[in-house]
């Protein structure tokens, strides 16, 4: 069927939107990365990243984001499975409960975690009743807690969506064919929910690796992540868009590579399953 003029014209807003707000900013990032203050071509911004401690900042960010993502996955996977096997009414309620924290601005959530984890905070005042105390604020652990809390819903929701689509009869069939509970999980549920896990991992890992607010408030600024560093080059004392853009570009490439690796293995896994079917 040939598309009418109106139908084609109606797609233009999409195109304009993507060009204006997705393509154009990316071009600017690349442009700034490879120019200096006078607009001349240079690779100095990229080289500088490998001559100083910036490599360490990248490693720090990757480590914390990785830990947070794995913890999110470990919490979210069983939860999503349990939710997806509940009665429909309960499913709706549970998902609503997962969504509620998202209605609150995550800056406020993070700020509240600061007062919860402080040495004079809520947890410690309860602990002190029993003569205990735990130093939590301004440690990498506190940052990971903040990341997990803020981004957990983004892990649960995609996994839940995929799992609730798994046909109950497949599970029954596998049981009939002699699968143990464990085998059912590893041979049926896990392969079928893989796509949800992958999008969950993407949705948690990417904001975790680039966050700056959480690390500043809960880490106390005693160690730096890549998000903090990028921020400081855009609004800090020495504004240097060129170096900031270079850091952003490398971060984007890093994320793209890790996503590509994940997708490469899991996509072929799913294609395989479809072929067998």
């Amino acid at each position, binding site marked *: 069927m040939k598309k009418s003029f109106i139908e084609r014209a109606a797609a233009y807003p999409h195109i304009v939107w993507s060009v204006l707000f997705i393509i154009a900013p990316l071009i600017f990032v690349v442009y700034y990365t490879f120019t200096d203050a006078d607009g001349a071509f240079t690779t100095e911004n990229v080289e500088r990243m490998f001559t100083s401690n910036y490599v360490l900042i990248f490693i720090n960010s990757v480590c914390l984001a990785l830990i947070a993502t794995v913890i999110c996955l470990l919490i979210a996977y069983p939860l999503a499975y349990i939710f997806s096997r509940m009665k429909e009414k309960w499913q709706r309620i549970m998902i609503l409960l997962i969504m509620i924290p998202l209605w609150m601005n995550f800056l406020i959530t993070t700020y509240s975690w600061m007062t919860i984890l402080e040495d004079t905070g809520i947890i410690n005042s309860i602990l002190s009743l029993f003569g205990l105390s735990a130093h939590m*604020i301004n440690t990498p652990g506190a940052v990971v807690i903040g990341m997990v809390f803020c981004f957990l819903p983004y892990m649960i929701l995609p996994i839940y969506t995929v799992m609730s689509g798994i046909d109950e009869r497949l599970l029954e069939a596998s049981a009939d064919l002699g699968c143990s509970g464990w085998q059912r999980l590893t041979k049926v549920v896990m392969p079928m929910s893989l796509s949800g896990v992958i999008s969950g991992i993407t949705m948690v890992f990417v904001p975790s690796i680039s966050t700056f607010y959480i690390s500043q408030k809960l880490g106390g600024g*005693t160690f730096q992540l890549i998000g903090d560093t990028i921020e400081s080059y855009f*609004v800090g004392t020495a504004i240097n868009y060129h170096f900031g853009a270079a850091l952003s570009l490398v971060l984007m490439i890093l994320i793209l590579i890790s996503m590509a690796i994940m997708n490469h293995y899991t996509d072929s896994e799913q294609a395989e399953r479809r072929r067998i079917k």
Partner: protein
Amino acid sequence: MKRFCVSALFAVCVLLLALLTSCSGGDHDDLYVYNWGEYISDGSEDSVNVTKEFEAYYKELTGRDIKVHYTTYPSNEDMYAKISSGTSNYDIIIPSDYMIERMIGEGLLAEIDIESVCEKYGAECYYKYIGDDYRGLYYDPENKYSVPYTYGRVGVIYNTEMVDEEDLGGWELLWNEKYTGKILQFNNSRDGFATAQYMLDLDVNSTDGDTWRRAQSELLRQKPLIQSYVMDEIYNKMESGEAAVAAYYAGDYFTMLDINEELGFYYPERTNVFVDAMCVPAGSANKEIAQLFINFMLSEDIAIANAEYIYYASPNSLVFENEGYIEDMGEEAMEILYPEGFNFAEELNKYAYRNLDAGTLELVNSLWEDMKITGGLPNHVYVTAGVLAAAIAVGIAVIVIRRKRRERFY
């Protein structure tokens, strides 16, 4: 058809967004004020709502309606980033001294002449009440671009319950190992470096890299003692007793004291002096109204309301000579805000931050970044991450091997 509907819906959304972001108006004037957070009397806790008062004042003066759009910024650098991008339309900004110097140099500020604007509108002009000490300052020697709003100094705030009296007096308190884990440091390179520079009696405006490196080594020595690097979180942490020692602006000490009576304050011998002054950006579309607003901010009732609300020292003689104000502030506050024998102009020239050249700024920022990242994370974080990465690698390997086996099987 479905595709068309989606697209149409999308187009409507874009249109709505465009409508929302475009300016309304036509039947009234607009004034865009861009100020620090918590830096004007805003009507909370029975104070005077200055922007509302101005709307009434303007109506009376000109017979026209006006809407004041008020937005805030957290630091000079944020404000500078926005104004210098050329995309904003603010009419009033209140930068600090060194930033005014920089912005004048870059042609970002408009020349103002309050007296002639007042004359034109038939308004009483209050500029003459600005004290002589606060005119012709280094950043604007001919008073062509700015009208001082407040001034102050940085001092050390401490918790009297937690800090011993014999340790007080200097910047050394921020380096005192007795208070490890209870000390807060500025999370901004200029103020952070300055604490070390004032302690070592170094020039805070030095263009010599070694001066900054010396200060950096001092900050590195301090790092293990620091609880966290903060800006506005300081209120929370000092008020709750989470931290015991912090350097901050004198006016803000009183805001904290209102909540936690155990806090004390002193000025070290050498410390930063700053002036925040009202300016009109060169890109402003309402320069005359902006000057009327500046003049209005200098009028007696409004200036006092602001000074009492924000607790910063005022350069306006209608304020600092007003008996009601002096009484309201109380003896202790007056002593800290307006210390006897304090030579403002001299101290400002000696200790104020000046605009640094681009090369030095770059160096300062990278030294600060290096200081912040030194030490990295505790080893167990790297070990955990390494183990997880290994586990993921094994997981992927298992998937790949299983797939290969299956391929052979079919």
